Structures are given as C-alpha cells and as structure tokens.
C-alpha cells in the first residue's frame, strides 16, 4: 500500500475537527444522559414490583436486541410520521442515550448486586432509609466495580457515534468519507480515521485508569 501522505496530512484537520465538533460532544452528552437513564432502569429492574421490573427488562431487551442503526432511523425518520420531528442532534443524543441506557443498565444492576448485603444492613442500622443507603453507601461502592465494564460501553459508543452521520450529524467518520469520496482514497482515509479513533480511545483508557485509581483508594492492593 502506498499512501498519499499529503492528502492524509491535509485531511487530518477535518477529521480532528469532526471529532471535536461531532464525535466527542455527541459521545459525552449521550453517555452522561445514558448513565442517568441506566441508573433508573437498573433500579427498576431491581424493583420488587413485577410490572416495573418487567418494563425495564423489556426496554433492555429491545435496545440490546435491535441494531443501533434502526433505533436511530426510527427516531429520526420514523417519529415524524407520528408528528414528532426532532433535529439531528437531539435525535442522535436521544438515540445514543437510549442505547447506553440499555447496555449500562445491566452493568449498573450487576454492580449494585455485587455490593454485599451487609452494607445495606449497616446503612439501615445507622438509621438510613433505602434511598439514603442507596445514595450514600451502595452507589459509591458500585461505582468502583462498574468502571471497567462501563468503559467498554463508552469506547463502543465513541465508534458507534459514526452512525450519527446517517441522520445528518457531521462527525469524524463522515468527514473521512467525504474526503474519501472526493479523493477516491478510501483505504487511506479509513485508516486515518481509525488512527484518530484509536488515539481518542487511548486517551479515554488512560482517563479510565485514573478514575479507577481514584475510586480504588479505599481498597487494598
């Protein structure tokens, strides 16, 4: 393979621009909202009320069982036919948040279950309600175990955001495709895009390590 290095160099700007204006904000916004949603869904799944936990289970099953592309399409192209017309960015953020919500809910649920029952009881014995014990005792501990699996969800999300180009959100991969389409250098541009994604993921992974270290300060090594 021989590459047109000038092209690669000159397209680095648009690619990084796409990452900064599209990929990264889209990832961060969707992940934050998705986590909140996931926490709610995880708590619903853990509810003793069969209807509540059934709804949550159904949601998770649909989100995980169907392609993200279809989810995006339904929200952007499908909802207008029932009168709900959302702009590309809101559509994308909603779709990705719903997706993260489904995947991360299972992670968070498992993390909550992994905190020993004795911690709930210790919370109760100092007078805490279920809610207080959840917030002050259980979730801080669940956070620690859920960082590695959530970082998987996060890293997948970074790359999945490329699908947003299907609903008119311009991001890293779309810019690569654009340059590729005009220069006909598909392989070079795709490799370049992959390299940019890789750098983003490397940065994120080191952020993950830092976070883990911070959360691990109260654990024996």
């Amino acid at each position, binding site marked *: 393979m021989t590459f047109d290095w000038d092209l690669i160099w000159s397209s680095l700007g648009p690619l990084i621009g796409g990452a900064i204006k599209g990929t990264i904000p889209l990832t961060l916004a969707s992940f934050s909202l998705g986590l909140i949603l996931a926490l709610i869904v995880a708590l619903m799944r853990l509810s003793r009320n069969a209807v509540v936990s059934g709804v949550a289970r159904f949601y998770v099953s649909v989100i995980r069982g169907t392609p993200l592309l279809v989810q995006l399409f339904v929200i952007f192209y499908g909802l207008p036919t029932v009168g709900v*017309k959302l702009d590309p960015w809101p559509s994308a953020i909603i779709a990705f948040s719903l997706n993260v919500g489904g995947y991360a809910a299972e992670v968070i649920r498992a993390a909550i279950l992994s905190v020993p029952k004795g911690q709930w009881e210790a919370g109760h014995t100092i007078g805490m309600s279920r809610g207080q014990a959840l917030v002050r005792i259980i979730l801080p501990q669940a956070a620690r175990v859920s960082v590695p699996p959530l970082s998987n969800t996060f890293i997948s999300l970074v790359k999945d955001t490329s699908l947003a180009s299907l609903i008119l959100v*311009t991001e890293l991969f779309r810019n690569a495709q654009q340059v590729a389409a005009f*220069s006909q250098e598909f*392989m070079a541009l795709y490799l370049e895009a992959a390299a940019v994604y890789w750098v983003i993921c490397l940065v994120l992974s080191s952020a993950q390590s830092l976070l883990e270290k911070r959360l691990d300060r109260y654990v024996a090594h």
Partner: protein
Amino acid sequence: SSGAGSSPSSSSSGGADTSLSDVQSKGELVVATEGTYKPFTYHEGGSGSLTGYDVEIAKAVAAKLGVKATFRETQFDGIFAGLEAKRFDMIANQISINPERSAKYDFSTPYTISPGVIVTKADDNSITSFDSLKGKTTAQSLTSNYYKLAQQSGANVQAVEGWAQAIALLRQGRVDAVVNDKLTYLDYTKTNPNAGLKIAAETADKSKNAFAFHKGATALVKAVDKALADLQSDGTLTKISMKYFGADVSK
C-alpha cells in the same frame, strides 16, 4: 454473491496489459454493483434476482466479449476500494465521470447521459434554478456528482446514504430540495405517483455515467467500448433504456 474467490484479472501495473486476456481466460467479467439503487441495479421484487439498467447493459457487454458477467454486490463505500484491490474488473453503478476519478481510474464510453434535476415539494415555488439553491438546504448522496454541484450553487448540503433517505428528508420538510439524476426521480414517481414532488429545475450539463476500470486496463476498456458501440448500433442499448425509462438515455 458467493464465490467471489475466483478472482478477476490481475492486470499489471508495471508489466504488460493482460486485463482483457485475463477476463477471457477466466471466462467471466467480475462486475461490482450496489444492488440497492433502483432502477439501475436492484433486486426484482426486492428479493428476486439482480437486475436493472446497469446490470442488463453489463450483461450485454459481457456477452459481446464472449464471457459471463459475474456480479459482486457491495456497499458504495467498498466499491472503489474493491476495484483498486482488483477484486472486480469493472464497476457498473452509474459512476459519473469527473476529473478526480479520471485521474485514478479508466472509464468506458458513457452509457447514461442525462441531466440532473432539482426536486422540491410540489407546492414550493421558491426554487426555480440552481442559483436559487443559495441558502437552501439539500440532501445528497456523498458519492454523487450532484453533491458538488449543490455545494457550488451555495446550498447547505446534507450528506445521506442514498436516494430513499434524501427523499424522506424532503417529504418530511427537513430539507428544501434534493439534487439527483433525473432518471432516479422518474422511476420514483412511477412507484409513488402521489409523493407531492416536482422537478424545479434541470442542469444544463448532462452528466456522463460509465463503467469504471482500474487504471491501465486499456485492452479491456477498448474491448468494452467496442462492445458498447456494437450494442448501440444494433439497438440493444436503446431497447434496454426504453424498458426502464421509456426514453433513450444511452446517448
């Protein structure tokens, strides 16, 4: 599309041009096409056999060369990469000739010559020409020539994967216009007569669409050109064109 392993010609970049002899010795012409671009390349009834204007012409060309046409269906993203990787002998997918492509690939003589059109909603009178696209929003396939054209006209261009999405955006009022080739639009209105769309303007220049080959496949291009000329003169191209468009767009 199975058995793509029987690889197409390994024609030379350095040595002699064996593009034609390779095709002849294999007895097949490996043709890349999307298979999802009606009426040029699509599946009969949605899941039947591959057909369409480009497909039929490619078959006719192969027959003239005395070989079988073997189609490889791929997404547009992979179509040129596959040609460069020599997984295909040629592309039959309404590839319009432009300077960038000409620099990298060889082209046959065009077999589709047709104008581009601006499609708008039937009740929209604000767009009457390419000049009036300025400041409007259009939806274009990234890989089509019309993307550039719309951009040059000052439109705010949204890239989409294909015609179906572009038209959905237009009908939902999310874009003001779609610039595409006329033939696709005509085919669409045939199946969706009540779409509420219209042609607002036509391009002055007609775009020329042709088969694409790897650079240096001169012998093969020559043979295909000869076949196309024969098909033109014996009326086959016109017949195929009439079948799909009710008009002769092949010249």
